[in-house]
């Protein structure tokens, strides 16, 4: 068997497998426009929860939220801009003071 006939093919296969080994799948980047932002005060009862389900019924407009001095809305956002969490937010950050909850209570 004349191996010279297979040299280019073998090089191509080796290169292809090598490249595939070093290529990682591109993860889809979340852009600002991918999310709705819901600024809300923790533990407050004045959240319009319908806004969390249906962003078009958001309670505050961007200009209103800017005035509330909460987490600012992204510049591009339109009239619907709120940030909310259904659950208590936890953190893995070791720098968080242990008496954080106590301080909040006091």
């Amino acid at each position: 068997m004349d191996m010279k006939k297979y040299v280019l093919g073998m090089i191509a296969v080796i290169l292809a497998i090598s490249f595939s080994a070093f290529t990682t799948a591109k993860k889809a980047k979340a852009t600002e426009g991918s999310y709705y932002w819901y600024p809300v005060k923790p533990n407050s009862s004045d959240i319009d929860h319908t806004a969390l389900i249906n962003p078009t019924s958001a309670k505050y407009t961007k200009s209103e939220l800017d005035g509330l001095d909460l987490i600012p809305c992204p510049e591009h956002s339109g009239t619907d801009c709120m940030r909310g969490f259904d659950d208590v937010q936890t953190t893995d950050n070791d720098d968080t003071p242990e008496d954080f909850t106590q301080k909040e209570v006091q």
Partner: protein
Amino acid sequence: MKFLPPKQLIVDIVAAIFIGLFTYTAVMKWRHLHRFIRSLQQVPIMHETAPVLAGFIPAVELGIAMLLFFPGTRTIGLLLATVLMLVFTGYVLFILTTMGQLPCSCGGIIEQMTWKQHLVFNAALVAMGAAGWYQQNRTKSLLQ
């Protein structure tokens, strides 16, 4: 050392390019099979058949790569590679004209191309495959 005639060398290089391309994209599609299935499912006409196609397309690519690898089956391999690239080009055209927002499910770094770049890339490969197949056929008939 005996050198290959330039035209035959060109055919061999074309075959090697297709071998590399099909092997690479087939491996990448199988490595990220679930992702590949999901991206195919986003095309309405392929929603139901996506899982079957996701296995079938890389298998066809590897099959053609094998045909191209062996000199005895290189002619049919070049023809099938050109036909497959024509099918892919048709798919790119369909996506471009109907739903250009979809991500490409081509496998690996080729996914980073825009659809228009992809169309040009595919068209170049179709032309290259056709030229390679024509040259291979000519060489064969001259030898007979």
